Structure formats: C-alpha cells, structure tokens
C-alpha cells in the first residue's frame, strides 16, 4: 500500500454567513503504487480539496493521510494544476528545474534531469522558450515535466486538461497514458470528464456532491490504448454516466 486515506474530512466555514459547509466527509481509501486513480465527481464534490490535502497544501479537518512504507521527510507528491501555474519569468528548462533547484540539487544533476524530462514530454528544442510563447498543450507538458523533476511517488492532477481545446486534449490524454506507463508513477487524477476517466483510469473513484463522499469505486482493467468507440469502453461510459447523473440530480434537488 502506497498511501492511506483514513476518515478524511474537511469542513469550511463561510465567514460572511457563519455557515458551515462539509466539503469532504469520511473519505477512506487505499492508493496502490503505480495505479492511475481517477477522482470523478460533479463540481463542488470536494475532489480538488481532496487533492490539496494530499499535496499538503491544505490541512484536513478530521482524519489523515499517511505513506505507510515511506519514512523520511521528503515530499512525496507533486501537483499539476489546471491553469499550468508555470513561472512566466522562467524558460521551459528553468521551470522544469525549479523543484530540484529549491531542494539544493547540484546544477549538473538537475540539468540532466530537466533534459531527460523535457525529452519525455517531447519538448526538445523549446528549452529556452518562455511560457507565454507556448500553446496551452505545450504549457501543460512543461508543468508535467516540472512535477516529475522532484521524482515524487505520487503525481496529483487537478483537471489538467480542462482548459484545453478538444483536439489538444485528445493528444494529451494519450500522452498522459504513455508517460504514466513509462514512468511507473502513481497518478491521482481529478476530473469531471467521463471520457477521461474511461480512457485513463486503472481505478475510478466516483464521488458524491455536498458532502463529498465516496459513492463507488470501479476497477478498470480494459486494455490500453483505450478507444471510446469500443463496446467495453462505451458500456463503462454509459454506467458512469448513469451514476453521475443520479448524483447531479440529487445535488440539485438538495439545493432546491
């Protein structure tokens, strides 16, 4: 077991009204090393909050997470954000080395790491470009390489393809599957896209909205590369669609 989430909860209080909102409730989950775990749910289900907690950027209100087989203080996660979050004043190569740089890795070593990762995400020749000189898809490749540069055990993705156009998204979905397979890393991937869940996930965690709970966990052992036009994929998509539709309907009724 790589990562254990135990009875994780997060409650916000809205300052203006004093109202308390339960964003996450009793999330218990085991993450297996090397899996492509999808957190799927309607907006407002707290899946991004869950990711922030896993990244250590937010503290849970109750419960906790731990890496049972890991000791030491090195951070074990790296995040890929929907809006890329690249440093505009750094070139592609300088963005990629940011993690090793702040952790005090020797220049020669971190430059070698950067070059290897830039090759992995197929950005060779763009090392000296600034982020604003790149397309959205290329920016997200840089963000992925930057996250990999710290050699984390887990990569956390917060709807990384949501800001891209449909064509670019298709290409990057395949790229993510390839890089996941090549690196053997554990991916935890937040999305509200059913297609993405079916195309990428080795396990899909379906979440409910307000409070965010785990509704269902679905193992996906379909062969890769996956195609939505195949009957198995289509059936899974149909099933997820039904489950999610119920969830959205209930959430809307609860709000009304």
């Amino acid at each position, binding site marked *: 077991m790589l990562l254990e989430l135990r009875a994780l909860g997060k409650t916000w209080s809205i300052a203006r009204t004093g109202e308390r909102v339960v964003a996450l409730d009793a999330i218990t989950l085991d993450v297996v090393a090397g899996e492509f775990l999808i957190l799927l749910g309607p907006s407002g289900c707290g899946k991004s909050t869950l990711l922030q907690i896993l*990244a*250590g*950027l937010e503290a849970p209100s109750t419960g906790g997470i731990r890496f049972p087989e890991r000791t030491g203080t090195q*951070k074990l*996660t*790296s*995040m890929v*954000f929907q*809006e890329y*979050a690249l*440093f*505009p*004043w*750094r070139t592609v190569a300088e963005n990629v080395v*940011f*993690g090793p740089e*702040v*952790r005090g890795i020797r220049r020669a070593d971190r430059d070698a790491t950067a070059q290897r990762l830039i090759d992995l995400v197929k950005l060779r020749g763009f090392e000296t470009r*600034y*982020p*604003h000189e790149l397309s959205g898809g290329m920016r997200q490749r840089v963000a992925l390489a*930057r*996250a990999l540069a*710290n050699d984390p055990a887990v990569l956390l993705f917060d709807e990384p393809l949501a800001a891209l156009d449909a064509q670019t998204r298709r290409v990057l979905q395949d790229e993510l599957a390839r890089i996941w397979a090549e690196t053997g890393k554990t991916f935890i991937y937040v999305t509200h896209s059913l297609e993405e869940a079916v195309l990428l996930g080795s396990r899909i965690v379906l979440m409910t909205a307000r409070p965010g709970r785990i509704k269902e966990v679905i193992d996906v052992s379909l062969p890769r590369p996956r195609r939505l036009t195949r009957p198995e994929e289509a059936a899974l998509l149909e099933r997820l669609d039904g489950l999610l539709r119920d969830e959205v309907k209930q959430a809307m009724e609860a709000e009304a």
Partner: protein
Amino acid sequence: MSLSLLRKAGSAFFILAVWQVLVQTGNINELFLPAPLSVLNAMWALTVSGTLPWAVLVSLNRLVQGFVYGSLIGVVLGLLAGAIRWVEDVLDPWVAAVYPIPKSALFPLFLLWFGLGDRSKIVTIAVGVLFLVLVNTVTGVKSINPLLVKAAIDLGASRLQVFVKVILPGALPNIFTGLRLGAGMALILVFITEIEATKAGLGFLLWEAFQLLETTKVFAGVVTFGLLGVATTWLLQWLERRACPWAQR
C-alpha cells in the same frame, strides 16, 4: 516605419528652422526666446569652460544617490508589505499620510534637519522616489497569481525561496514602473532643491541664469535637463529589457 521617422524628423527640423528665422529677422526678442543656434552656442561655451559638466556632475551625484537609496528602500519595504500582512498594516498609515504630500514641500524640513549640503537634497529625492517605488512594488506583489506561490511551495520552496524566486521576479515589471515614475520625480526634485540654498548643480545654473536674465543660459539648462531625462529613460528601459526579458510585448 521610415516614413513615420521622416515625418518626425521633418517636424522637428521645420519648427526649429522657423524659430531660428523668426529670431534672426528680429520678430522675436532673444531675451524671451533665444534662437536654437544661440542655445547650442551657449551650451558649447558652457561645456568647454567646464561649467556645465561640473553642474551636471553635482546634480547627477544628488540624483543618483537619492534615486538609488529611495528605490532600494522602496523595493524592500514594498516586497515585505505586499507579502506580509502585518508589515502592510504597520506601513499603511504612514504611506497614506506622506504619499499625497508633494515631496518638494518637505524640502524646507529636510534643509532644517540635514543642512544646506547635498544631504538634504538627496533625502528629498530619496523620499520622493521611495513612495512611488513602494506603492508600485506593493501593487506588483499583489498582482502575482497566488497559484504560482502554491506551485512553488508544492515543489518544495521555503518561505525565503518563495520570496526570492516568486515574489521578487513576479513583482519586477511593476517595480520597473515605479522606477520609471521615480526617475521622473527625481529629476523634478533635483531641480527644485537646487534653486535655493545651494551654489552648485544644474538647477542652480539655470536659476541663477534666470535671475541675471541670461535667457540663452536658461535654455541651455533646460535642454540639458531634457537630455538627462532621455538618458535615464533609456537606461531604465535597457535595464528592464535585461531584467524582465519575459515581459516583452
């Protein structure tokens, strides 16, 4: 492009030529508006006699010192105030109180406190520059996308590293806006602080010439101030291009 350049050069040359002719034909009294060539002559004479270079050096010394001290303090305080809430709270009433005061109005006080020498002028310039740089630096820090700070922390940056590697470069374009405004302010203040209680500097040269009704010399001073302004603008633009190559449009 070259046509536009031609029009600009033509405009400058035409006006100067008309001006020169009007003075030479006696339509304009040189006491009020000396001819361009007379001004040029005067500048040349002042330069070879060493008067003008010395005046420029004296003023530049005050200008550069005031500008550098003011910008350094402004940048450091601005970064701290932008990034740390309690620093902002502590500085806020003072900025709010002093920012709207024309800094030239503080000069008499600084004369009282720091004497007739260079120091009172340098302090006046520094204070004028400081507030412009400070306010723009704070704006720069606040304009940084909080997601970038989050990403830096996620990648393992310490608080100090976030400050040096995210806050500072992120605020740099706004810092340069502050520096440009500060340079303009410094030029104004160096003139104002040199018209009284001093015996040296470009402002003194200009003001003394006015009191003796040496209008040509006044113009020489004005043109030199203009050249100083152009030079500082170029220098800052060059610095900005080197420091923020990503911010070029």
